């Protein structure tokens, strides 16, 4: 078991900010945390990393209590760039981690090169741009080849090239057996990285979406929607209605079946659209009220 969270609850005075969070990750995967601002993503990560106390629940990481500082030999947490010391160089930060983690110091240079920051790692952090700081934070997080890495909005403020580069590094980590928990507002990037998404709202995990997000969903624009729905229902085929179009998932029945039903009953099909339900689509469905002006 990589991480086991049971009944995690946190309150700030009278307000409950995390409500009974429960999940387990038992094999390496990339898990995304998605939710509006204030949904509890950062708070949850900080609780898991023993940076914030919580009132109820249990957290076990790699078989150890989450308060055990030796966990950080195998776990990394990429936080925001305020944790960096402006008067020190990137190299100072990396070498410090090498020394504390009992890693060979040459690993600092190797990691800097792998991340692509070798040409500025010896400069003081106060001269870094936002992207450079994010790269340094990533280098610090992956330096010890962790079994679990948590990243709190690592893509924020990155240009497309840097965002792709970061994604590639995380994917590479995952292929080598690291579990990645990443929170992000960039749903496009999330879609490209993982199918495992925890949607959070008001301190709760609403839904854990898995691979079915990427199964084709079709929408049919037909001449007589009501008639078509009647025939689909009679035939025992589940169908939905969205903006006047018929919708269904290919897990229920293939597209050809739907076409045959329409043709047999004289219903003209004006348009067939193949829609993959990605993170953004699902986000919009779950957080409809947040999106309304």
């Amino acid at each position, binding site marked *: 078991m990589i991480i086991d969270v049971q009944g995690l609850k946190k309150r700030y005075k009278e307000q409950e900010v995390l409500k009974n969070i429960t999940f387990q990750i038992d094999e390496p995967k990339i898990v995304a945390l998605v939710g509006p601002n204030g949904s509890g993503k950062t708070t949850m990560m900080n609780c898991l990393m023993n940076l914030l106390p919580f009132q109820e629940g249990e957290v076990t990481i790699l078989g150890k209590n989450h308060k055990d500082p030796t966990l950080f*030999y195998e776990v990394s947490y990429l936080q925001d760039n305020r944790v*960096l010391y402006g008067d020190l160089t990137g190299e*100072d930060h990396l070498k410090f981690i090498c020394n504390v983690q009992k890693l060979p110091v040459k690993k600092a240079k190797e990691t800097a090169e792998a991340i692509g920051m070798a040409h500025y790692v010896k400069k003081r952090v106060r001269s870094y741009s936002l992207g450079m700081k994010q790269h340094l934070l990533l280098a610090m997080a992956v330096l010890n080849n962790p079994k679990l890495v948590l990243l709190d909005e690592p893509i924020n403020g990155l240009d497309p090239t840097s965002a792709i580069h970061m994604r590639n590094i995380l994917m590479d980590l995952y292929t080598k057996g690291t579990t990645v928990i990443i929170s992000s507002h960039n749903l496009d990037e999330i879609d490209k990285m993982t199918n495992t998404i925890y949607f959070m709202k008001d301190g709760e995990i609403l839904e854990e979406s898995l691979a079915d997000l990427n199964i084709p969903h079709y929408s049919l624009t037909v001449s007589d929607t009501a008639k078509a729905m009647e025939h689909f229902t009679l035939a025992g085929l589940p169908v939905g209605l969205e903006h006047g179009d018929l919708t269904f998932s290919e897990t229920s029945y293939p597209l050809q079946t739907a076409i045959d039903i329409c043709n047999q009953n004289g219903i003209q099909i004006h348009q067939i659209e193949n829609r993959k339900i990605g993170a953004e689509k699902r986000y919009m469905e779950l957080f409809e009220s947040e999106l309304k002006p």
Partner: protein
Amino acid sequence: MTLFLFELKKIIFSRRFQYLSAIILLLIGALYVRNILFQDLLIKEQQKQVDISTREVQSHLRAFVLQQEKDSENMILSERITHLSTALDALYEWKPLLQSENWQARLQTENTFLTALLSYKETGGEFSLSTPEMERTLAWNDQLLRQGIEPSPENYGTSLPNFMKQITDIYVNIGAIVLLLLLIGDLLTIEFEQGSIRFLYTQPVKKSAILHAKSLTAITIYLFVTAAIFIFTWLLGLTIGKPGSFSYPVMIDKEDSFTFIPIFQYIQWSLSGTSCIILLVIPLCMLISLYAKNAIITLLSVMVIIIGGYFSMQAVSWSGQPWIDPFHLLFTGRTIQTISGLWIYSVPITLLLALLIYLFALLKMKRTVDIS
């Protein structure tokens, strides 16, 4: 060790440390230049004082002479006139010696003046110079003549040992504490304020190790800065100052007597005593940081506690004993100049309090989880 070196690097490479260090050294240089420039002014000031004393003596003498014309049998009047005449002769002799290289003659003449004046005051005469002040100066001059050391103006020394003493006085009478707080007062609070404590908390290090490293860093910075200040002062005095003597006497002004210790001993004692109080200030700063998590509140609180503690203990009559007063060494220079070697009795209580505060800070650090 890793944490300690990391902490040390953070301080040494910080702009604030570098700028402050440069400013301090510049100020020391400026102070020395000021001392040199003021030498002529000091002589003029002394001449002015001699003139004032001369006029006062002449005024009293005239009055007594007039009185004696009406009361020629009055022995006390005669004595007063004799003493004042001696004093006046000494003043006439003293003024030209102020610019002379012959400092022994200058001191002897001043002693003659003061002795005559003290004798005059014993007869009930009044004069603007107080008896304790005159006795102090007499003792001082006698000591210098005995040791064969040229006098140096207090707070305007241009010789190496005297300038070092001047710097010591500023440093050990709360200067070191203020400087240390400016340099490392926010060593812990800044981690909470900017959030970088989360970086340390997500490394495989114990929280107690973080506190040990920061405290050790603070002590190291204090030692480093102290050494830098005094080495710079020494080099300045050595290159452009007069050699002077490290046996130059520093007066210990006890209630009913004067004793003297050499400057080198004064500097040694002062720095030792100050180091002791610094060992109290550092854990106090750490403890308050853990509660306040704000640099300004921490610094103000530390100053209020140590200064308040000092004056509170001074106000309580039974606390006259240094061994029960942990704040006695706050103004180490002043303390030494009133109780001499007895300052050392304050060390155990100061260190004990420092240890207690440090233990509280450790406990608080271990229990600190909320980084918000």
